């Protein structure tokens, strides 16, 4: 329910759905963080939404959300049996991490919505789903899909793979990678990563939980105000397109985690709702 001021009249109950493949993501820290920011907010941690119990009927639906052509969002095809089987294996073992397939973020959100408890399908609940599936959204301006960290809506999806793969790494990384490829891969990706250590968020990065705090806040801001992002590069609500921006917005210690405007909004919300 939204008030005339354009925001919910009450604090939603927040439900965080685990991604067990993200070893360095500690959702208990996120719960404490949200309680610190919002005061008496109800937050619970739930098992993965895409999990074994749902394997029977959603493996095909998940496979159908795969992006078939990154330059054309209208390519539709019935998933092949091997693709459905692949999804089934991922559902049966949520610890399995096999990034490389790109899904359509909004279609994935539609599949996720069907799995939410019927009694929680209202704005009193903010469902935030962590997944290791990498998704993208279509951008009509340049006519192609772009990988994303998150899709905000009902529910909101945050991709732990997207945190690594969606924001671009430093330009020199790609230049060097191309050069190595041309020379027959005589340098491993692990070695290449070491050269750029710290300059991007990697899989199982110890900074992951800190990074996720900002994306969860974006999801909640979207839920309350309909606007998740801030233009200020130093604010946790900044929509980073480069890893260097992401690291600045989410992990570099600053006097305040949020810009002046969003800090004030958070203070007001905390006062009003507690």
């Amino acid at each position, binding site marked *: 329910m939204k008030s005339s001021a354009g925001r919910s009249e009450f604090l939603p109950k927040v439900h965080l759905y685990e991604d067990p493949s993200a070893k360095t993501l500690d959702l208990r820290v996120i719960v404490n963080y949200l309680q610190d920011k919002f005061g008496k907010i109800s937050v619970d941690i739930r098992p993965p939404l895409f999990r074994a119990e749902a394997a029977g009927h959603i493996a095909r639906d998940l496979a159908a959300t*795969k992006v*078939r*052509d*990154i330059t054309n969002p209208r*390519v539709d*095809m*019935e998933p*092949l*049996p*091997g*693709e459905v*089987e*692949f999804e089934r*294996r991922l559902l049966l073992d949520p610890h399995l991490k*096999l*990034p*490389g*397939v790109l899904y359509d973020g909004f279609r994935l959100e539609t599949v996720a919505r069907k799995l939410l408890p019927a009694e929680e399908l209202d704005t009193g609940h903010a469902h935030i789903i962590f997944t290791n599936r990498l998704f993208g959204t279509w951008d009509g301006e340049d006519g192609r899909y772009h990988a994303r960290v998150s899709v905000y809506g009902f529910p909101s999806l945050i991709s732990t793979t997207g945190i690594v793969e969606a924001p671009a790494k430093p330009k020199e990384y790609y230049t060097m990678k191309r050069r190595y*490829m*041309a*020379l*027959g*891969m*005589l*340098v*491993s*990706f*692990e*070695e290449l990563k070491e050269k750029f250590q710290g300059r991007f968020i990697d899989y199982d990065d110890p900074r992951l939980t800190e990074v996720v705090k900002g994306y969860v806040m974006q999801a909640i801001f979207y839920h309350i105000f309909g606007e998740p992002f801030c233009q200020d590069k130093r604010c946790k609500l900044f929509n980073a397109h480069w890893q260097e921006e992401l690291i600045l917005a989410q992990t570099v210690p600053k006097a305040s985690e949020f810009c002046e405007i969003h800090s004030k909004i958070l203070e007001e919300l905390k006062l009003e709702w507690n």
Partner: protein
Amino acid sequence: MDDFQKYAESDVIIVGGGPSGLMAAKGLAERGVKALLIERNNYLGGGFWLGGFLLNPITVRAPGHKILQDLGVPIKEHSKGLYVASGPHACSKLIAAACDAGAKILNMTLIDDVMIREKRVAGVVVNWTPVSALPREITCVDPIGLESKIVIDATGHDAAVVRQLEKRGLLKVPGYGAMWVERSEDLVVEHTGEVYPGLIVTGMAVSTAYGLPRMGPTFGAMLMSGVRAAEVAYEKLRGQK
């Protein structure tokens, strides 16, 4: 001619004699399966003779290097998780291993069509490769059918067998995606399996069949995918008995 008649009916036909096809043929023949490998060129090995950029050292990412060790190919750890071997040495060892295991090789043979029986792939129609290079007016060599319980498509990015099914409207193939080496290898191995009743895909044909990212010049996943294709085919054969 005796051999030809003997292999007119096989347990498994592997189409494509690159690293994944050879590994699949070796894995099946070792298990006592009657395996026939078809290769369109006169030579076997596909791209396995060479690495990237005209260099003949090939690179294999862990854990694919263990396969080379098992084949008796000398390898060197070049950097963390990345191994290097001589392309000619690795390729010739792999060919020898497939032959030693008992796989039958039919080179200079091109797939022309697939045989479908009771809604499953039941063999391939082949012709001598040079026939395809000559105008029909001067060649009059009819193709022949080779039957099998299972066909394995190991034809690389061409996915020649899969494409035959697509031509008939039995499958829709998305084609391979952009190159993303560090992700494509695991995905190729993971997607190796039956794509249509009686048809298993392996190696880079998997990328084409499922629209996965394209692989770069590393061969670990192709070797491992071949191993997996043999396992899947063997299990299916056992299930058919």
